[in-house]
């Protein structure tokens, strides 16, 4: 039974009508992972435990959850009990957590089966998955091209049809940008919607977990399970969680969509622009209205982000010191030497670069000029969004200024070039707002993503808006040939 490229809803039907068992489905998923090993989506497989859980689920099939028996992949940044969790870093290459992240636990409690941990940019720092200690992930659409990042392994695994959905995390675009580059759907929820307990922190005030899937509907299914207040994460939101799937098919007649004036789209590749104009027409046909809006401070998003995120990361990554867990250097002379060698050997260049930037931004004499100033600008950006959402329902932008690029072609000389990849995605992290990327066509045979940004806790509206687009287009159904990988 072919399960490749099937959505959760399709697999659910196959399981429910017994055309496949959970055991078989899980086996198929593992087989696909092996078949496309060259994509390098996975850092660690969970074959023995995953298969055992599948077998047990078949014999005790009482769970009514949509996710019961569905194979999923988890970004290797979520701690998973007894399953190696590396953050794609050498420093954690031997780390086996004694506990499971809340987001993953909730998905597993709903009956899903974790088949493995996906490759990513080291500690989620990157936009191309090229900073992983475990090597590059290929874009399933084109060998030798990046899948985007940092959740590149999750995006590629879904795009290649190995699993119907995967978890990711998004600090500045790390779910949406790889979703766009791989031609799938990815949702970053409102900050605090999903618990961060067990998510290895990059930038605590920006990090948010979310789903990557083939459709908005499947994203809604995952979000239903992942969301909710967690007493172990006091920054998680104590708000009602609606049934995201139940409300996904509402008409959007009269929906007001904002186009951000400050994002000068005429600078973009003309094909990317053309796709954007096409999608506007699709929405107009569905009854939506477009309004140009201004977010005067949004152009400061990238520098603001690159002051705050590294500052928090420099502190968050201090615990990787070789003392209690992770890589410890050999032949050290004293405690300081242990720190210096363990961290120098354990971290890759991009991580070191961001620790240095962040340490600088927080240091005495610079704190006011960088970190504090950035927090003030962040507040202004958030205020801009609050203002704009008084007159529009959602905002629409391209997800990324361009399509996936070739390995090594960007940022090797000037890292800032790569930082600009996040131009359209970063502001919603700074403002804590939900945003989704959906595929809306291709340029030069590579997928292009459309981003919708929603108001605070309005994931239901975003998913609804995304789903109606997918109901009226077939971009999300496109499948890569994968002929170069098997």
């Amino acid at each position, binding site marked *: 039974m072919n399960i490749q490229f099937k959505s959760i809803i399709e697999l659910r039907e196959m399981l429910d009508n017994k055309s496949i068992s959970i055991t078989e489905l899980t086996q198929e998923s593992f087989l696909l992972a092996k078949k496309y090993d060259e994509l390098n989506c996975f850092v660690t497989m969970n074959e023995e435990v995953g298969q055992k859980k599948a077998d047990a689920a078949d014999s005790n099939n009482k769970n009514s959850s949509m996710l019961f028996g569905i194979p999923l992949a988890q970004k290797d940044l979520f*701690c998973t009990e007894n399953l190696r969790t590396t953050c794609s870093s050498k420093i954690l290459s031997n780390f086996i957590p004694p*506990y499971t992240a809340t987001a993953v636990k909730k998905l597993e409690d709903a009956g899903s089966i974790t088949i493995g941990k996906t490759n990513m940019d080291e500690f989620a720092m990157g936009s191309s998955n090229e900073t992983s200690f475990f090597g590059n992930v290929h874009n399933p659409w084109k060998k030798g091209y990046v899948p985007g990042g940092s959740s590149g392994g999750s995006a590629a695994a879904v795009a290649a049809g190995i699993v119907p959905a995967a978890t990711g995390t998004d600090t500045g675009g790390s779910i949406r940008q790889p979703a766009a580059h791989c031609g799938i759907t990815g949702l970053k929820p409102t900050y605090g919607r999903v618990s961060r307990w067990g998510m290895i*922190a990059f930038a605590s005030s920006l990090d948010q977990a979310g789903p990557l899937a083939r459709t908005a509907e499947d994203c809604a299914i995952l979000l239903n399970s992942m969301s909710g207040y967690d007493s172990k994460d*006091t920054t998680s939101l104590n708000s009602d969680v609606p049934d995201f799937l139940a409300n996904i098919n509402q008409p959007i007649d009269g929906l007001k969509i904002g186009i951000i004036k400050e994002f000068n789209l005429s600078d973009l590749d003309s094909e990317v622009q053309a796709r954007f104009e096409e999608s506007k027409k699709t929405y107009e046909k569905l009854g939506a209205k477009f309004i140009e809006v201004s977010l005067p401070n949004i152009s400061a998003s990238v520098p603001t982000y690159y002051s705050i995120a590294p500052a928090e990361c420099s502190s968050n990554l201090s615990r990787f010191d070789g003392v209690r867990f992770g890589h410890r250097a050999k032949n050290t002379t004293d405690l300081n030497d242990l720190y210096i060698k363990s961290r120098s050997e354990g971290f890759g260049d991009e991580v070191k670069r961001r620790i240095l930037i962040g340490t600088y931004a927080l240091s005495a004499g610079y704190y006011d000029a960088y970190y504090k100033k950035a927090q003030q600008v962040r507040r202004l950006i958030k205020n801009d969004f609050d203002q704009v959402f008084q007159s529009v329902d959602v905002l629409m932008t391209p997800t990324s200024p361009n399509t996936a690029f070739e390995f090594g072609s960007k940022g090797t000389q000037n890292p800032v070039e790569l930082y600009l990849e996040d131009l359209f995605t970063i502001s919603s992290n700074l403002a804590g707002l939900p945003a989704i990327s959906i595929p809306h066509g291709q340029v030069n045979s590579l997928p292009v993503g459309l981003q919708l940004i929603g108001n605070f806790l309005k994931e239901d509206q975003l998913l609804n808006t995304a789903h109606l687009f997918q109901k009226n287009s077939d971009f999300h159904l496109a499948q890569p040939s994968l002929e170069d990988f098997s």
Partner: protein
Amino acid sequence: MSWETVIGLETHVQLSTKTKLFSRASTAFGASPNTNVNLIDCGLPGVLPSVNKEAFYKAIRFGMAIDAQINQVSIFDRKNYFYADLPKGYQITQMDLPIVLGGSINIVSGETTKTINITRAHLEEDAGKSIHDEYDGYSAIDLNRAGTPLLEIVSEPEISSAKEAVAYMKAMHQLVTYLDVSDGNMAQGSLRCDANVSIRKKGDKDLGTRTEIKNINSFKFIEKAINFEIKRQIKILEKGETVTQETRLYDSSKDETRSMRSKEFANDYRYFPEPDLLPVVISDEEIKRIKDEFPELPSEKEMRYQQDFKISAYDAQIIASSKSMADFFEAAAEQTGNYNLLANWLIGEISAYLNKELIEINESKLSIANVAILINRIDDQTISGKIGKAIFEEMCISGISPDEIIESQGLKQISDDGAIEEIINSVINDNPAQVEAYRGGKDKLFGFFVGQVMKLTQGKANPKTVNAILNEKLK
């Protein structure tokens, strides 16, 4: 040249909460290494702190007692530095918006009372412990203490001598134990301080360069360390040299302070607001509840003791000055009727013993029940006060009940007139010369006869009865 000392103290008070500041692991002292530790305490990847409100309630109680401003919205910050017993590589503390701001505390040094202003008091987590001498070639880490809540209380630089510093710490000890904010156990590190010491010419307005003596944990060491440091700094200044701003450690074995690190090598702690925690908001209802449940303070106890127990103002003041003593007094008073005798014993024999041993009453072998029994046996004349003292000494060592000691050693007082009269008769018969002399006017010999009676009865004769019968017989 006349010099003037300026001292500011940073006091670290370990709060007596059951669990840690950001995790639900136990704070119990003395557990096996790394047993009171959970995922959060060892700083595993992906863990997050959550605030223990109980620590806030205790901090607020302290703030109310010193008449400070309570910040009902306070925030946590990260203080970043690397050390092996600091699991996260940063300490969660309060920098910009501490829970307690301002206030003051009165100290009594010698005859004078002085008010020392408090700058602020903030909550923070303690670090673990590094053990360097137990494993050859390795250092060991014990994280039991990591995450234990501390209240750091910063005084204004208004303390002028080592003696005042000790008085300040004693006042602090009394306050935090009274408020049940801390157990105040200095030997276990529940109360310790850093002293900022500087010297200036008398009359100067500007402060001199200060040094900070870290982690002093006894009243005695506070006095010695500060006095050493004052002398050291004056010596430097009198040579015309300048004091280096630095952190110093007090070595009690050599009675000296020595340099730990100078300012040039000081850490840049890169403080910034802790993004894993929202601002902590204390509601008006919570404030009200803390006020309603506010414990009785020493001055209030003093008044009540005089009224309820009819003990003297002096006794009441001494007993009320120590929380453990006051608790003991009140509990024992429920089991005995002679409050004055109980008070006398507490501030007399019992205090003398505790001072000698340098312990608090709750750390001794003296139980409330046993002390009450002892008072009752003296009160009902089963034993004399003198025998009581001998029994007390035994109780201090063994913790055995006075009744048992009386029974096993046959110490019951002889109050039987007939028995005592018999003994007195034999004393008079055996000492005719002394009887003669006494009757001839040598009154002082009365004591001799009492002594003889006591000797024959091993001190067990009721002294009142002895006196009465002797008086009669020697007429």
